[in-house]
Structures are given as C-alpha cells and as structure tokens.
C-alpha cells in the first residue's frame, strides 16, 4: 500500500513540475505592443537568476521586472534591437541566447567550421598517402624473383 502511494505521489509531482510555467503578467496588448512580437522577444532573452531559462519561462522576481521593462520599452515604440541593446548594456551579452559575432566569440561561431576543415585536410592526406602505397614497394629485380618463386613449384624458385 505504502509504495503505491509513494509512486502515485511521485507521478503527481513530476506532472506538476512539467506543467509549471512562468506566471506571466497580464500586460495590455491592445495598444502599441504586439503580443506575438513581445512573446518572441522574451523567449530570446536569458533570465540571469535561473540561467537556463528564458525570460519567458522564468518565474524569478528579476524576470518579472525585466519582462515589465521589455513591455514598457516596446510600448515606447522601441525596436527589438533597441530592447536587446538596453539589456546588453546592463547585463552584457549573457542575456542573449544567440551571442553576437565579434572577436571574442569568433571561436564559438567559426571554431566548429575550422575543426571540420582540419578534419577534412587530415582525411585528404591519409587518402593520398594510401593511394601511393598501392605499388608494392618491391624493385623490378625483386619482382622478377618473386614471380619466379610464385611460378615455380619449389620453395627456392629453381
């Protein structure tokens, strides 16, 4: 009886955490702020308190405040770019899920392609050296001797 109850409780709890979403504030979307644009934007911004959640997902106090800030900036007619710049100026590139391309992030953006290129180069070299090896490495004289041995019935080739 007891284990069953526990199991039931465990299942119940996992269901609840799955269904738990951020308590989104009731903003007014009848005016300047387009709801789809707002939702799209907050999904691209990272919550700094719970770092693996976006502003859209997070229920942290700071996420509430930052959503309010985003809504107000949009209400003032700011573009997505300007809203992002506002947050980056205060919290750094870390708030962006998609980091900008700049010297300090080159390795992040181009590193995988560089590794791929190195891999292809190594592969090419290996293939090239293999194709060279198709000749047996015996001199003409040795090959003649070898042929004799193979053609003959005797192990010494005579």
């Amino acid at each position, binding site marked *: 009886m007891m284990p069953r109850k526990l199991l039931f409780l465990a299942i119940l709890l996992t269901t609840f955490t799955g269904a738990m979403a951020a308590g989104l504030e009731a903003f007014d979307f009848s005016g300047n702020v387009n709801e789809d644009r707002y939702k799209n934007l907050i999904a691209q911004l990272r919550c*700094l308190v719970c770092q693996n959640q976006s502003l859209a997902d997070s229920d942290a106090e700071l996420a509430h405040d930052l959503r309010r800030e985003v809504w107000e900036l949009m209400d003032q007619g700011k573009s997505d770019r300007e809203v992002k710049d506002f947050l980056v100026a205060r919290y750094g590139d870390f708030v962006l899920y998609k980091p900008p391309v700049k010297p300090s992030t080159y390795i992040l953006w181009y590193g995988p392609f560089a590794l791929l290129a190195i891999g292809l180069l190594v592969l090419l070299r290996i293939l090239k050296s293999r194709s060279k090896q198709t000749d047996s490495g015996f001199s003409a004289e040795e090959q003649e001797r070898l042929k004799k041995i193979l053609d003959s019935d005797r192990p010494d080739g005579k």
Partner: protein
Amino acid sequence: MPRFVRYLAPLVAFIALAGLLYKGLSLDPKLVPSPLIDKPAPAFSLPLLQHPDTLISNSDFKGEVTLFNVWATWCVACRQEHPLLMQLAKQGVRIYGLNYKDERAAAKRWLQMFGDPYLANAFDEDGRTGINWGVYGTPETFVVDKKGIIRHKVIGPLTSESIKHELLPLLKQLQEEDG
C-alpha cells in the same frame, strides 16, 4: 612531417583540451561579468530609506571612493555579509546602500537590530535602479572611484578573504588616484 611530430600531436591536443576543461571547472557560471565596469555609474535619484522626502542620487558619492552595496532584508546572504560591512565602515570605508525591492519598515528594523554601516540608503522599491546597475542577485557591491566610474563589482556576499586580498588593496589604489 617528422615522425615524432605526428606521434606527439594527439598528446599535445589532448593536453590543450584537458587544460581548457580544467579551467572551465573552476569558473562559476553564476558570475556574469558586468559590462558596466569602467563605465560611469548609472544615474539615479531615489528617496532615502530613512527619510522618504529626501532624495539621494549618485552625485552624492562623487569625489570620494565609495562602496555601493545592494541589499535587502529578504536576502539571506546579505545577513551573512552584514558584519563585514560593519567592520569596513568602522575602518572608515564609505558605504552607501541600495535597499533593493524591500519593505521600508523591515529594512529600518534590520539596521536597528544589526547596526547601520551605511552613510545613507537609497530605497529602490520597484528595482528599476537595480536593473540600471545590472543587479541580478543580492548582495552585490560596486566600487565607485572618485570620478564616479564603476571600477569593480563583487557579486554575492563579501568575505573576509576577498576584502583583505581584493577590496582593500583596490580601495587603497583608488584613494591615491586623482579625483
């Protein structure tokens, strides 16, 4: 390619990668570097915690090296940090506070109970000044130089270690700079 290079290359690559990952182990992803370092302190004008009718602004700490400590009564780590702030204040360090998203009565009670290391506290009820300063977790402590430039930021509670080895040497250095 000489043979030994070919054999050593994977070893070198492995050591490089291991070094990189080892460094990664000691980094704390919770510490987000502030883009405000070496930039002028964001302007604010807020009521004082103790006197709601009087305003305080960042021009109040211009001309002197100042600590700007972000705290709240709901912040457990702030409680832990508080005695260290008291010690710093006794040593003559100028500390202003940003009472962040707090209740006025609770904050006043806190200062009565545990002592008040602050020259003054700005009362940031809705947390907007906190956002302008890039605050994302209390306590946070900013070091502002004589020119009003943010020179350093401590995220999380100060420790006697960090005060001795980082904060005090920095304050001394900043004191010697021209205002």
